[in-house]
């Protein structure tokens, strides 16, 4: 009951924040990696500008090596940009993960020495959340991710998809207002990916959080997002941002619609040249 009241409260927050509208604002971002072996510096990103609206589902697609994950690490405050500024709720992100930001990585980040339940409780305990409230929030996260039956299991006893669910639950339980997903389903099979996609949509609707999803799967981006940002080959920047126009209660069944097909085709026509260029880049590197 209390957990429900809390989601209502965080929804209220969202409504208040809606007036600000821009949840995340990146301006003039570039990222240059200096080579440690004395080779030429690599321009990974930018110059790049991006605004995420509060509560939207934004996906980033782009050829491999275009700096998608770097972009996510910048927004998460895990790396600093070489130039430019990142604002979250109007506050500059610098040298640390801002409050209210949750990240789910591509790699399995569950703690193998803790049970599912303790994994989920980990962040709450660190933050000193009142135990009764913490329990309720963890219960709700278990329920939302369908992990109730596995609460006392260790991650090694779970499949890859289940482990990724543990990571999602551990992120959700902190009630983030901005959820960053770095190809979280990259290692999963196609059916599991579709199901996880639906679940992420459900979670997005239930929490009202802003979501930024990094993915290499065009169909995933086309199906899940309000807007899809298409990135260029290195140094990555947005060459187009596509509005999908889906209703908020969409699910994976839209994949059979005509519009989904034309959307995916459009994404690919934009990406094709960039991908060819990216492939050449990686071949010259070798």
């Amino acid at each position: 009951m209390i957990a429900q009241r809390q989601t209502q409260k965080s929804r209220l927050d969202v409504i208040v924040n809606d007036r600000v509208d821009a949840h995340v604002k990146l301006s003039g971002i570039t990222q240059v990696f200096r080579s440690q072996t004395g080779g030429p510096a690599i321009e990974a990103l930018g110059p790049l500008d991006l605004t995420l609206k509060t509560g939207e589902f934004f996906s980033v697609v782009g050829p491999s090596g275009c700096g998608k994950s770097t972009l996510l690490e910048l927004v998460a405050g895990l790396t600093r940009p070489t130039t430019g500024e990142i604002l979250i709720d109007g506050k500059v992100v610098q040298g640390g993960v801002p409050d209210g930001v949750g990240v789910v990585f591509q790699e399995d980040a569950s703690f193998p020495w803790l049970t599912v339940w303790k994994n989920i409780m980990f962040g709450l305990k660190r933050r000193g959340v009142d135990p009764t409230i913490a329990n309720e929030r963890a219960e709700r996260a278990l329920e939302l991710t369908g992990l109730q039956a596995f609460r006392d299991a260790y991650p090694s006893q779970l499949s890859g998809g289940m482990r990724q669910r543990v990571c999602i639950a551990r992120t959700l339980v902190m009630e983030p207002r901005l959820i960053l997903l770095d190809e979280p389903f990259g290692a999963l099979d196609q059916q599991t990916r579709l199901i996880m996609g639906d679940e992420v949509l459900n979670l997005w609707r239930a929490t009202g959080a802003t979501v930024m999803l990094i993915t290499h799967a065009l169909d995933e981006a086309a199906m899940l997002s309000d807007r899809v940002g298409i990135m260029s080959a290195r140094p990555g920047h947005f060459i187009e941002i596509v509005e999908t126009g889906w209703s908020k209660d969409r699910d994976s069944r839209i994949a059979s619609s005509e519009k989904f097909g034309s959307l995916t085709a459009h994404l690919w026509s934009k990406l094709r040249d960039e991908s060819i260029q990216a492939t050449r880049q990686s071949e010259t590197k070798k």
Partner: protein
Amino acid sequence: MNRLMRARLLVVAAILVVLEFACRTGLISSYSLIPPSEMVVAMIEMLRSGELTAEILQTVLAVFISVAAAVVVGILVAIVLHSMPRLRQAIEPVLVTYYSIPIFVFYPLFIVLFGLNDVPKVVIGFMLAVVTMIASTLNGLDRVPRVLRKTGRVLHLSRMETIREVVLPSAALSVFNGVKLAIAHAFVGVLAAEFILSTGGLGYQIAYAFHDFDNRKMYGIMLLLLIIVAVVNAFLMGWERYIRQRRGLS
């Protein structure tokens, strides 16, 4: 698995029977070896009379202090080295070649420095144990997935909290392996030091009995030492298996 265990037990039992037979029939002279059953009797007699209690305590305590110091120092040094790659690169050759140095040549120096008491043998035990502890912990720290450290940052853990709550648990199996090796090295160090020059301990008693031609006592203590080491090892292996099983690694 059960069949394997039975086969192993059978091999040990066969060796014991052959030894017993060889000793009893005089094939092996009692000046070089006493029958295994005799060793057991001698050991039990010594344990009953309490003449060894002080010596056992002395040796076990010296090993314990060596290991405890080696584990604490080893983990701390490894964490520092891991966070300073330059320093680590500079020190790496020392770590790699360390065990080619016969540490025992410094033993006389330690006696001069610390006096003829329990300190030199603890120092020797520590010196033999600490580097394997450093190397094992470093190995474990290298294997901590980057994504786990990132997760720590996302969850707003401080540097100390990250080490305590994420890095060390993640490296636990390697650290544990280091502890196992450290115990083995510390036993060797302490016992050998007792052999060479000391005032007490099980190693000293073995050497004393040897010079005294007291084979019953010598073999009795040797058997006791083997049992102590076997028990410690069995305990550690059981614990390790428990940790591994929980993580699905067994």
